[in-house]
């Protein structure tokens, strides 16, 4: 859907787009009236609880549920035997939802119980006897790739390797992107730096745990209320796993207390449905925080080697990255996206990135904001920072000299359309933060980031109510303020006030299929569908006015919320407002609605630059972020406060990832820190105010020029902070998180090295 030919976003005067009205879900959320996943209730509801493997890798010899079944109050017990092994494509999802034959990680579900109370359910779990044969395990990506490592799946043959390996391994697949020959490039360089990096797995850290209420009737009709980023995905997956017709399962998405990619798959939903089917009663399952950490989907940990060469004049001549990511017990680490995005910021002649998707005895990873990109940006942007220092060039200058622009052949294939990287770099250089003085033990870091942004399948209905208000039904759960933006967009098109439009997230039976709210796609594609649905409705409104006036519909135009004759020749009629036409709809042809369905493409890629000042305590290695600025291209910011919120949220999650968040596994393969006490996301007092600058370079693929903004903001922070900490501590940090023990060790190591010299 191209940029509107009538609208030049740079000069067009929007009524509402670009303003900051109050969010429609605000009052409900601050008063507690909003209904989240665990707020769904049903008469006769049972409590579902899941038994989880304490072992990282074990064969399940048998599961004896007889004792538990006899406990009064227990109404149903399910294990893998209650799910049919169906389509191959869903095999991993099914095995993750309920262990089949082997438990593959600490926390892997092995059985579930539905009972009349939580305490009965807990007791019942203790009565289930699982006979495990404990197997050797592996949780580290590099260890898992070694020959002789404990093997998770004896049928895993590395894909996309020629010739195909004869023996199974923990490497699911290889991928490669790029053009030219980096070795040729390195020969042209004056300075070449090669470094290895590691990052630990982090969790999205959404505050609301996974929760759902499932109700299956005796007639095979099911309903599910769930906290998810994609209820159509939940419906289709659950229907397939339970062998139901898609039409027989109706899924309603609750309000969502954070997802960040982590709620784009199913965990407890098929289990709750299976329990409900067996018990004949509604079943609610709510994960504990410990379960969220052990058994939902954190992101991958990584191990990477990056090599880049530059000339003294600052031209990158060659770039090479080898990226290994473990994505937990099943294939699907986001290494492909990581490898594609590695060098996407730059205009390069010789570039190559290779990725390896590895399985380990950890929970299956799920998407986490710009999956795969932040860790790779950490490695690439760290090496660039070091190169800039080596050749004595300002780090923004170095990036400007190599920045991708319109027409650049990207490192992952396509040629760029209009993009805003250069504008972001220039805005950074002109920002007062860039030249502000630093205090003692402080360092400043800068880094660039890229994200693809997605479009996808989208469908919107817009109903004109009798009083001239508008009911907008979208199918993408509101994970970042999209209801506000959609109301603004509909009101903008229709020419009516913002508060006359109310948006809801419709259930799966009320609206056609919508892809998940992911890939920064919602404001782009649901916004685009809303524009078109509004225009569809406008066409019908004009036709009703024409009918009222007895003139041809072509002779009617829509202006400022009114139908008007297009010219004096068309007739002399007083304009009819939307409300006027709505009131008479019953007499002019019935209800008026606009619809639009699309598989949207044209989502413009986006870029961001982050600036971070870090103070390092040289005696303890403790890092404090003193100042932070995000500069990002939004294409067109529909609701700037939400856009700034996305920028700030990405930066904050990045600060956590960079400094203290990590999955800590013991030698026994068990997760050591399954709680917010020892899994340290930043608290408010850890953070400075995150400053933001919205750059607007319109996306040619959207009527208003909108680009996705939700993910790009988590791509640069790991690198920006690593560069700041490395500058402050005067030693290069190459492993995340940069927790105090690790930073202190690096500082002391450097001092010892100097003393030896």
């Amino acid at each position, binding site marked *: 859907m191209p940029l509107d030919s009538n609208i030049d976003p740079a000069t067009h005067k929007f009524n509402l787009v670009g303003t900051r009205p109050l969010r429609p879900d605000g009052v409900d959320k601050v008063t507690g009236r909003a209904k989240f996943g665990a707020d769904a209730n049903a008469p006769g509801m049972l409590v579902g609880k899941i038994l989880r493997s304490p072992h990282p890798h074990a064969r399940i010899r048998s599961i004896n549920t007889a004792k538990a079944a006899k406990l009064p109050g227990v109404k149903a017990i399910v294990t893998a035997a209650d799910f049919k092994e169906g389509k191959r494509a869903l095999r991993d999802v099914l095995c993750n939802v309920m262990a089949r034959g082997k438990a593959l990680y600490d926390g892997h579900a092995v059985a579930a119980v539905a009972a009349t109370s939580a305490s009965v359910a807990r007791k019942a779990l203790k009565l289930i006897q699982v006979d495990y044969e404990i197997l050797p395990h592996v949780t580290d990506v590099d260890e898992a790739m070694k020959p002789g490592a404990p093997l998770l799946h004896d049928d895993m043959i590395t894909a996309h390797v020629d010739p195909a390996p004869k023996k199974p391994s923990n490497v699911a697949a290889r991928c490669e992107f790029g053009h030219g020959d980096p070795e040729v490039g390195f020969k042209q360089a004056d300075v070449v730096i090669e470094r290895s990096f590691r990052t630990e797995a982090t969790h999205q850290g959404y505050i609301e745990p996974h929760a759902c209420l499932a109700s299956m009737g005796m007639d095979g009709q099911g309903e599910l209320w769930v906290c998810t980023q994609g209820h159509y995905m939940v419906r289709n997956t659950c229907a397939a796993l339970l062998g139901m017709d898609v039409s027989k399962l109706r899924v309603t998405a609750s309000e969502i207390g954070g997802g960040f990619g982590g709620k784009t798959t199913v965990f407890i939903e098929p289990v709750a449905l299976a329990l409900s089917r067996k018990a004949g009663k509604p079943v609610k399952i709510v994960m504990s925080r*410990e379960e969220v950490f052990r058994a939902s989907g954190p992101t991958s940990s990584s191990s990477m080697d990056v090599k880049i060469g530059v000339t003294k004049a600052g031209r990158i001549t060659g770039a090479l990255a080898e990226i290994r990511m473990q994505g937990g017990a099943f294939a699907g680490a986001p290494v492909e996206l990581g490898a594609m995005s590695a060098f996407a910021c730059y205009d390069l002649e010789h570039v190559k990135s290779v990725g390896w998707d590895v399985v380990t005895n950890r929970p299956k990873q799920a998407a986490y904001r710009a999956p795969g990109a932040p860790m790779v940006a950490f490695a690439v942007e760290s090496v660039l920072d070091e190169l800039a220092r080596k050749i004595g060039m300002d780090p923004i200058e170095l990036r400007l000299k190599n920045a991708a622009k319109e027409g650049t052949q990207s490192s992952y294939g396509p040629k760029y359309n209009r993009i805003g990287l250069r504008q972001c770099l220039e805005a950074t250089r002109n920002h007062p933060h860039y030249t502000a003085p630093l205090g003692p033990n402080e360092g400043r870091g800068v880094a660039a980031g890229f994200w693809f942004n997605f479009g996808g399948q989208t469908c919107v209905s817009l109903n004109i109510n009798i009083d001239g208000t508008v009911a907008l039904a979208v199918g993408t759960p509101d994970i970042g303020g999209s209801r506000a933006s959609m109301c603004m967009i509909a009101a903008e098109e229709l020419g009516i006030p913002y508060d006359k439009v109310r948006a809801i997230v419709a259930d799966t039976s009320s609206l056609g299929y919508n892809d998940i709210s992911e890939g920064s796609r919602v404001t782009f594609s649901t916004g685009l569908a809303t524009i078109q649905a509004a225009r569809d409705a406008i066409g019908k409104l004009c036709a009703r006015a024409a009918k009222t006036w007895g003139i041809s519909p072509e002779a009617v135009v829509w202006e400022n919320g009114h139908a008007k004759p297009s010219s004096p020749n068309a007739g002399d009629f007083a304009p009819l407002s939307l409300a006027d036409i709505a009131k008479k709809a019953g007499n002019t042809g019935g209800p008026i609605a606009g619809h639009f369905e699309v598989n949207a493409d044209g989502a413009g890629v986006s870029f961001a630059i982050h600036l971070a000042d870090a103070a390092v305590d040289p005696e303890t290695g403790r890092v404090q972020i003193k100042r932070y600025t995000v500069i990002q291209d939004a294409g067109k910011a529909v609701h700037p406060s939400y856009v700034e919120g996305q920028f700030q949220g990405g930066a904050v999650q990045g600060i956590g990832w960079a400094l203290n968040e990590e999955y800590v596994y013991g030698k026994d393969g068990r997760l*050591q820190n399954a709680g917010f006490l020892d899994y340290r996301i930043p608290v408010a007092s850890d953070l400075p105010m995150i400053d933001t600058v919205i750059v607007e370079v319109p996306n040619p693929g959207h009527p208003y020029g909108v680009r996705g903004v939700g993910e790009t903001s988590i791509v640069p922070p790991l690198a920006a902070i690593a560069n700041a900490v490395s500058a402050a501590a005067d030693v290069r940090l190459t492993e995340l998180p940069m927790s105090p023990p690790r930073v*202190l060790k690096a500082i002391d190591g450097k001092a010892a090295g100097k003393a030896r010299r």
Partner: protein
Amino acid sequence: MRYEAPTTINAAVKLLAGKAGQARVLAGGTDLLVQMRTDRVAPDLIVDVKRIPAMRAIAAKSGGFRIGAAVSGAELGANKALRKAWPGVVEAANLIGSTQIQSRATLAGNLCNASPAADSVPALVAAGASAAVAGPRGKRTVPVESIAVGPGKTSLKKGEIVEAIILPKRAPRSGDAYLRFIPRTEMDIAVVGAGVNLTLDSKGVCTAARVALGAVAERVILVPEAAAALVGTKVDAAALKRLAAAASAACRPIDDKRGTKEFRIKVAGVLARRAAETALKRAGGSK
């Protein structure tokens, strides 16, 4: 599970001593309830001590203070006289948790939970505080450092309960301070904690000192060697350096998810030195 809320210490002791199964005192509950929820303890009897008036008061005693075992952190922080005399103890107690936790958590609970990382305990040990213990066989007063014997284990006998924490009379020109190391700014468990308490003479020479460390051994430890490094000095740079070295040398930490051995050993010295600098300032001395 039975819940009781007696109004006298004798009644509480009787309940605790009489019960056959596992019995627990409930003060603020900020440790106990968390442990129950995560299935780590399952007491048969819970004796809530917050209804015992004597345990809810802060009283002046022989020039010092007697702090009832059910007094919350917020109440400690609101007591001006206590804050003036023992700023280090109060700052340590007020570091515990958040505003919500502060309105419940107690010094005695922090002590009897026997975590090596308990924040108020190094400050109390450095302060030379004692615990008034009541039990089926009468009352006794013991130094606080003798209560915890290992992670989660105390020297309290069946039926015994800490009635109050006693802080001694303050000599002139005294100061105390507590510092903890956490990676974040709040809501965290000490990776290392250091409490220092010292007294100066009129010339600024240190005449007495106590140094205690948390989270570097199986329980909070008193480090006489570190204190000795200060006594007889003006707490100058050389003395502080010796203090730091002695503090580090006394550590016998473990590697765990919160920090490595080598990190804890080094940072213990750093924190002891920084806490001593603050205590010195509070005693009216200068570096």
